[in-house]
C-alpha cells in the first residue's frame, strides 16, 4: 500500500494544506476539533473535493487538479469508517455487509468469514438500532472490509464507545483490520500513540509535525506542536552559559546542555519530581491546588522564586503525593536536565 497526498482546500475559517506519504504503516492525524483533519480524510475518500493538488493510491491517480482528474468515491476503493458508523438503518446486519461486496466475489464464504472475524454470529438478522455501540462498530468495519478497500480511513473511530469497550476495541482493531493499513483521525493523544507508528499533528489546516510517535513526543519540533501534544509547563528562556539557561518567569536558572539558541523551555507534568530534598535543578516550592484522580494526582504549585503568579503542574502517583504531604521538610520541585524540552 502506498498513498501520496498533497492537497489544498479553502475552508471557511482557514486554508487546509496537507502533504504526506504513507507506505505500509499506520498513521494518525491528531488535532483539535475543527482543525481540518476530518476534511483531509474526506478528500482522500472523494467525499469532498480539494481545490488543488494530487492524491495517488498504489499508482492510481485519484485526484489531480492539473490534469482534471477526480475519481468518484465509488471507484476509489478507499474504505471510510464514520464516527457514527452510518449503518443502513433499514437493512439487517447481513444485508448491511452484503450490499458492499464487489460483483463477482465469492460472497457466501466471505460473509461467513466476516461474521466470524467480527463476532457477529447470532446478530445476522438484527437491525442496526438493536445493536450496541460496539456491535455497530464491528458491523461497520465488516461492511467496509467486504468492499475490499485498498486503504482504510478511520474518522474518530472510538469516540462513540465508552470505557472498557473503547479499550477492548483499541486492543482488537489492528488484528481485525488484518493486513489493511489505516489512516486514523483523532483528537485523543493516547489513542493516536497506541494505534499508529507515525503521527501527524495538524492545527488550523496546517501540518505542524509529522514523525514517528516516539520521536514526536520525546522531541517535539516546536513549542506549538509540543503544546498540542500535551505540554503544560513552558516559559521563555535564554541561554546564559554552556550548561545553564535562565527562565525569568520561573525566577530560576536551570542546568541543561543541548542547543545553543533557546527561546523557550518546557517540561511535561509527568517529568517533574517533587521531593523533600533538593536534587539537581531543584527549587523550593509550595502546593497551591491538587486534582486527585483514582491512582494519580495533578499537583498545581508555584516556585518560591518565581516573580509572577502562575502555576506549574506535576503529575505523580497517589503514594508519592501522600509521602510529600506527610513530610514536614520543605518541598522541592526538580527539573531533570534530560527531560527539559528546549525550543
Amino acid at each position, binding site marked *: 500500500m502506498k498513498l501520496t497526498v498533497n492537497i489544498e482546500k479553502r475552508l471557511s475559517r482557514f486554508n487546509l494544506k496537507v502533504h504526506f506519504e504513507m507506505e505500509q504503516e499506520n498513521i494518525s492525524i491528531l488535532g483539535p476539533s475543527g482543525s481540518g483533519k476530518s476534511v483531509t480524510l*474526506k478528500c482522500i*475518500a*472523494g*467525499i469532498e473535493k480539494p481545490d488543488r493538488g494530487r492524491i495517488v493510491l498504489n499508482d492510481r491517480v485519484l485526484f489531480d487538479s492539473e490534469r482534471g482528474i477526480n475519481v*468518484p*468515491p*465509488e*471507484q*476509489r*476503493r*478507499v*474504505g*471510510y469508517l*464514520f464516527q*457514527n458508523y*452510518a*449503518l*443502513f*438503518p*433499514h437493512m439487517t446486519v447481513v444485508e448491511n455487509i452484503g*450490499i*458492499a461486496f*464487489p460483483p463477482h466475489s465469492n460472497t457466501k464464504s466471505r460473509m461467513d468469514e466476516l461474521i466470524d472475524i467480527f463476532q457477529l454470529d447470532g446478530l445476522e438478522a438484527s*437491525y*442496526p*438500532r*438493536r445493536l450496541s455501540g460496539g456491535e455497530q462498530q464491528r458491523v*461497520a468495519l465488516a*461492511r*467496509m472490509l*467486504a*468492499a475490499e*478497500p485498498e486503504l482504510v480511513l478511520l474518522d474518530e473511530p472510538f469516540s462513540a464507545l465508552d470505557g472498557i469497550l473503547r479499550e477492548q476495541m483499541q486492543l482488537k482493531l489492528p488484528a481485525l483490520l488484518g493486513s489493511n493499513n489505516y489512516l486514523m483521525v483523532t483528537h485523543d493523544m493516547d489513542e493516536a500513540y497506541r494505534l499508529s507508528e507515525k503521527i501527524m499533528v495538524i492545527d488550523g489546516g496546517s501540518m505542524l509535525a509529522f514523525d514517528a510517535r516516539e520521536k514526536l513526543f520525546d522531541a517535539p519540533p516546536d513549542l506549538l506542536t509540543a503544546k498540542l501534544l500535551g505540554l503544560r509547563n513552558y516559559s521563555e528562556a535564554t541561554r546564559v552559559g554552556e550548561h545553564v539557561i535562565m527562565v525569568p518567569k520561573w525566577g530560576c536558572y536551570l542546568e541543561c546542555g543541548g542547543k545553543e539558541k533557546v527561546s523557550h523551555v518546557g517540561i511535561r507534568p509527568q517529568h517533574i519530581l517533587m521531593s523533600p530534598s533538593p536534587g539537581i535543578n531543584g527549587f523550593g516550592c509550595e502546593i497551591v491546588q491538587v486534582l486527585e484522580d483514582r491512582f494519580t494526582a495533578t499537583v498545581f504549585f508555584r516556585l518560591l522564586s518565581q516573580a509572577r503568579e502562575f502555576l506549574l503542574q506535576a503529575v505523580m502517583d497517589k503514594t508519592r503525593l501522600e509521602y510529600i504531604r506527610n513530610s514536614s521538610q520543605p518541598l522541592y520541585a526538580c527539573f531533570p536536565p534530560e527531560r527539559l524540552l528546549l525550543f
Partner: protein
Amino acid sequence: MAFDFAPLWISLKTTLVSTVIVFFLGIGVAQWVINLPPRAKTVLDAIFTFPMILPPTVLGFFLLLLLGSNSPVGQLLKALDLKVIFSWWATVIAGSVVAFPLMYRTARGAFEQIDRTVIDVARTLGLSQRKIFTKILLPLSLPGLMAGTALSFSRTLGEFGATLMIAGNIPKKTQTIPLAIFFAVEGGDMKTALVWVALIMLLSLLSMVLQSLWSSRSQATASRRS
C-alpha cells in the same frame, strides 16, 4: 334520465394520471435540486414552490397564456397539430401543476432527513448512484414519498380553479366532479350536487383510510427494526 357518471370516470382518470406524473416528476426534481449548489437550490426551490402559493385561477390564467395559441409553446403545439387547451389533457396539466409543489416539497423533505453520512458511506463502499437511489434513498424516504403521493392525490381530486380556466367545463370530456358540483348548484340541481358531494367525500375518505393503513403497516416495520 339516468344519472351521468362521466365526471367520476374523468376525475378518477385525471387524478390517477396526474398523481403518477407528479410522483415521478416530484421525486426526480427533488433529487436534482438537493444536489445543486446552495444558491441555485434556493432559487429553484422558490420557483417550484410558487404554484402552491398562487390562487388556482391565477395559475390557470398563466397556463392559458403559456399554452394559448399566441405563445411560443402554443405555436409549437399548433405546428404539431396538438390541441391541449380545453381537451382532457388540460385537466391533467392543471391537476399536475397544482399538485407538483406538494409532491416536490415532501419528497425533498424526505430525502433531506436521511443522514448524509449514510449516502457518503454507500459511495465509499463502491455502490453505484443507481443502487444508492433504489436500495437506500428510496426505502429510507418511502413514508415521506407516500405521504406526498396521498397529498397530491387529494389535491388533484379537488382541483377546480385552474382546471376551469384551461380545460373548461365540457360534459363527458373535461367536467370533473368538483366542476360538476359547481355547475349543478349553479343550475339549481341540488340533488345531483349532493350525490357528487357524497361521492367525493367517499373517495377522499377512502384515500385517507388507505394512507393510514399503509402508514401503520410501515410503522410496524420500523418498530421491528428498533
